[in-house]
């Protein structure tokens, strides 16, 4: 994939987006909702890998960003139009990531992972407390939700934007700086990289997409409460998808989000009681025998060919 130029990637993304935009008129509801899940995880995993794959940070903050975006919609949809709420959701998550990033991005490894996991919990409890104290409520009912076609097209647009932006970042100086930081942060600094700024920028950019997805997807639930939107499972799932796909690549998380979502759905329907056991076993096997992710499989084939 590295051989593909930025232009080809952008063109391919554009063509795919146009084709996928026809799906609401072609697919039955069940498949459309499955496609929506694929797109949601594609955006989450690709933007996660843009920062974490390059820098070797393990962030579990995706559910925090996602939840913040969802709450922007929950609070704002009554007064704001849907597209504005989605953009604001992304911006709110990016602003939060900037603040948090400035404070904790000097941490590494398990400390950073645990801390970002705690963030999701922190925001969840803060919002629960806020809602209870000021609005005497726990959850909110979303009224006047946009049609499922609008939601699908919005999520498709965010996913396509995420792929394009991540491809551009990878080809840019920011991407080079992030890759250098992943390899040897101190060395990049001695070569003139403002590592702190690069990391905050990358972290915030990846949070923007998670927040926008959260804001866009939130309207699928008619009732929103903190437990539902700050679901740690979303954060874990994103990390797993990106790692199974190959977090250091662009195509890996993309392919993996489709494979993973379809597989989860298929196993759930075929083996409703054993699907998590099967999924878990499959994951263990993948991590053991394919540490470079699905992308390494494809690269191997290309090298041979």
């Amino acid at each position: 994939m590295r051989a593909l130029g930025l232009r080809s990637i952008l063109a391919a993304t554009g063509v795919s987006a146009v084709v996928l935009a026809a799906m609401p008129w072609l697919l039955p509801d069940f498949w459309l909702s499955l496609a929506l899940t694929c797109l949601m995880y594609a955006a989450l995993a690709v933007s996660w890998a843009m920062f974490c794959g390059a820098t070797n940070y393990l962030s579990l903050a995706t559910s925090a960003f996602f939840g913040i975006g969802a709450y922007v919609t929950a609070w704002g949809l009554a007064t704001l139009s849907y597209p504005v709420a989605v953009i604001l959701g992304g911006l709110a998550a990016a602003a939060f990531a900037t603040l948090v990033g400035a404070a904790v991005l000097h941490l590494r490894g398990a400390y950073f992972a645990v801390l970002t996991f705690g963030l999701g919990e922190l925001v969840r409890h803060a919002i629960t407390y806020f809602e209870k104290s000021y609005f005497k409520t726990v959850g909110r009912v979303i009224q006047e939700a946009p049609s499922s076609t609008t939601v699908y097209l919005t999520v498709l647009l965010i996913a396509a934007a995420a792929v394009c932006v991540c491809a551009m970042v990878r080809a840019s100086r920011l991407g080079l700086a992030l890759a250098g930081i992943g390899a040897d942060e101190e060395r990049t600094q001695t070569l003139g990289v403002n590592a702190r700024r690069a990391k905050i920028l990358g972290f915030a950019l990846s949070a923007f997409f998670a927040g926008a997805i959260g804001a866009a997807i939130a309207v699928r639930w008619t009732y929103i409460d903190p437990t539902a939107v700050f679901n740690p499972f979303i954060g874990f799932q994103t990390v797993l998808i990106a790692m199974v796909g190959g977090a250091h690549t662009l195509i890996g998380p993309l392919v993996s989000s489709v494979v993973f979502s379809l597989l989860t759905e298929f196993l759930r329907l075929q083996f409703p009681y054993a699907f998590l056991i099967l999924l878990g076993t499959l994951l263990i096997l993948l991590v053991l025998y394919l540490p470079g992710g699905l992308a390494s499989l494809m690269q191997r084939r290309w090298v041979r060919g």
Partner: protein
Amino acid sequence: MADVLLAAKGVTVRFGGLTAVDNVELEVRAGEFIGVIGPNGAGKTTLFHTLSGVLVPSAGRLVVAGDDLTGRPAHAFATHGVARTFQTPRVFRDMTAEQNVRFGLEFAGRTRMHAHDAFDDARTILGFLGLADAADIPAGGLTPARQRLLEIGMALGARPRVLLLDEAAAGLTHTELEAAAQLIRRVRDELGLAVIWIEHAVRVLMNYVERVAVLHQGRKIADGDPRAVSKDPAVIEAYLGEEGEPEKKAA
């Protein structure tokens, strides 16, 4: 006399109870070729860490090209024209040699031009170092000796005014060492850089540098013409007298 490019003023580094660098004064001017010697544990590398901003000194000031950079992060030193190599090569192993050199050009190097146009191109820098054939090879696949040369190339990519070399020639054979020393002198001559070079092979170093500073137990005990310094009784006592078995010298 040329302007002072890099000045360490009373630089002190303490690690807990240990004073690794003790009140060191050092002034470096454009075009100077300076050697820094001293027994193991004398504080040479720690001094380099402070000169390149990797380590903030416990006391003292660092002035680069007229700006006080004390306490600033390493990238500020790099953009002010201080580039360095590390004792153990720290190349980006997954990137090609060319990408490694280009890294400096993309960041610190963007802010300045080289004195010599030819050095604005990663391939030319690699050619100058004798690494032209390695341009497309991932840096992790190079021999340790060639990784050391590549480290110099990465530093040159940052378009430095002051080049800090931390044992750039360690582990080389005598012939390779002479070649490396000549190369470093050529870098200095062609680019007009100031070069500060730490090396354990004291005799070769003394033949090439024009000024040598001696560190002992964190303090600078001599600084001047290599011939004069090598006759200094304090230096002989601290270091040169035991050169035959420097590893026995307690740090």
